[in-house]
């Protein structure tokens, strides 16, 4: 999995000494500026992370083994991978909450409520999170099943559960 991380100075957490942010969710926020509730993940040093997850190299700060570990994985310090997980979690939440899959010439895209004005927006710029590439085929299960399984669950856990 490859994750592209942008550098933004907009999310500054005064509780931390290091003010320069590493804000993974900015990727999503840039899809529709101010349309997604701000994601208040703690700021981290500005770094560049390359490589695959298990072989990540961190540069840009004076690193020690402990700080690298913090940057990468410390949940309390909003380590890099924690942010990625939050990012994916947000995406999944959007998909789950508003499961509208609409056809396009190239396949399907997700229509979701991402604005605060309650209008429906086409979240077709999910492509900026190309990292989640397997979301397109879910290990070779048709991606439409994402929405359908939720509809079916809604039926099974809803009215069907009241029929005996």
């Amino acid at each position, binding site marked *: 999995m490859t994750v592209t991380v942008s550098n933004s100075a907009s999310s500054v957490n005064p509780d931390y000494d290091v003010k320069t942010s590493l804000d993974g969710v900015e990727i999503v926020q840039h899809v529709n500026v101010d349309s997604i509730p701000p994601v208040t993940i703690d700021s981290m040093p500005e770094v560049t992370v390359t490589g695959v997850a298990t072989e990540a190299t961190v540069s840009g700060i004076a690193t020690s083994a402990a700080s690298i570990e913090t940057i990468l994985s410390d949940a309390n310090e909003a380590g890099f991978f924690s942010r990625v997980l939050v990012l994916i979690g947000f995406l999944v939440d959007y998909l789950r909450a508003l499961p*509208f899959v*609409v*056809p*396009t010439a190239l396949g399907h895209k997700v*229509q979701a409520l991402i604005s605060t004005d309650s209008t429906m927006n086409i979240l077709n710029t999910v492509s900026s999170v190309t990292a989640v590439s397997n979301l397109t085929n879910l290990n070779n299960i*048709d991606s*439409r099943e994402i*929405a*359908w399984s939720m*509809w*079916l669950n*809604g*039926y099974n856990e*809803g*009215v*069907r559960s*009241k*029929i*005996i």
Partner: protein
Amino acid sequence: MATDFSGIKPKLDLPAWHATPLIYSALHVAQTATAGSTLTYDKRASQYKRNNIYFLNSATTLFKYNTKQNGWLQLASPALAGTFGIGAYNIFMPSMGPRGTIAAGATTTSVILSTALPATVGANQLVGQRIRIIGNNAAGSGLTVVRTITANTSGTTPTITVDSAFGFTPGTGAAYEILAGRLFMLNAGTVAAGIWKYFDESTTSYSGNLSTTNLPATIGTGTTMCALDELHTPITGPSGVTINGEEGGYYGTLTATAAAATTITGHAAGGDSGVTANQWRNFQIRIIEDTVNPTAVGQRRRITSHTAGASPVYTVPAWTVTPSANAKYYIENNNDILLWTGTATTTYRYDPVGNAWDATTYAVKPAANAAGTVAFQAFGSSIRPGYIYNFRGGVTTTLDIFDITAATTGSWTAAVPYDNAGLATFSTTAAHAYSVLENKALLSPVSLASVPTNMYTFEPDSLSIKGYAPCPQIPSTVTDGDRLALDHYIDGTDKKTFFYWLPSTQSYMLRSLFYV
């Protein structure tokens, strides 16, 4: 096992849709609805109804979806003549199937067919189908029984074994009728041999080219059909008798009090004693038991007219064999298929047994239909089962009603006012499905690109339209065709309806449990 639906609380529980599997061809190509494609289904609420939804997607592409097994099956090509597109239409007739006489050698639980089936069947291919045995041979039983087939030999004149004894041994020449149903398919375009065929469920074979005499030169847009099958019966008849969607017409078994060459007289009390004059005109009387005159049993006659009860006298075309005074009979639908097409106001009528069209049995419409027209008989109504509701289409809200009982050839009422007529106009993408269980229809008058599809319920008895949960699927473009269908969940007398909707540009149906 009963099914308890009492836990469902309308309003607390809101209707919704969910998807069914993708439609793939036998060659694993996803199928998207094409213009003119239709969904067709068995309208009965009977325990014996077929659990199939048929999807005709081209002149050569026919699928059926099994509502129990949740899967699609592509059938052999129907090879219809014509030009597939808006105007093509299907209709399912559940009582139709191979008919004929039986040979010598029957037992109390088996018969050997004499009249050959239209195609060879394999051993036990007919298992589960229903067969009607009519003891109308000379010196026969004079009884009609319906049984479920449990075994059959192979061939075109198989030995057929049933699940329980007939109660008599059918004699040579007794009649059989396999009640497996037939899907009648009409393609659009220039009328030619092969534009009108059926798919026979019992033998899973297609007919040859059915008659097209008396059809117009072209099957155009604005086509819709209505099946008046004798097995289209209500849950509760007008007298309060429970039919539950099974065989039995509108009153269950009735016993005559007199009969003559062109008449039969009904109950003095109970039964059909409460009918009003001509309440059942153009329905049929079918003799189901006559032990005095066995050769009279099985006869069907359209009711020309009748007096009011008590002891209503039904006038019919002359009987071939006059029933005895106490023969038993059903009052039921007459097995006609009605067609309206193109810019013609003609009501075309097809006799599926006689394989003949005519344009004279029924009255012409007050105005022609247009693309987007839909029509259905509210055969589940305890008030007006003889009404056919016809939304005219053509981007209008106009509703015409055809009362087949109101005159010899029926009578149309044009542009009937109805509740909430509003702005729900019927365009080329209109679709409908009528459910006898609730005596309501689900309507989808129009589909538009890039928005969910609005759905409405229509209540025939109160002439009222109400909003229903819209289908969330958003088509990128719209494709013409009547692609709403339904199936009933049936557990004894506990029944519920599922509506099915195949949206434009999609490769799957959505399903909605109907409980409001």
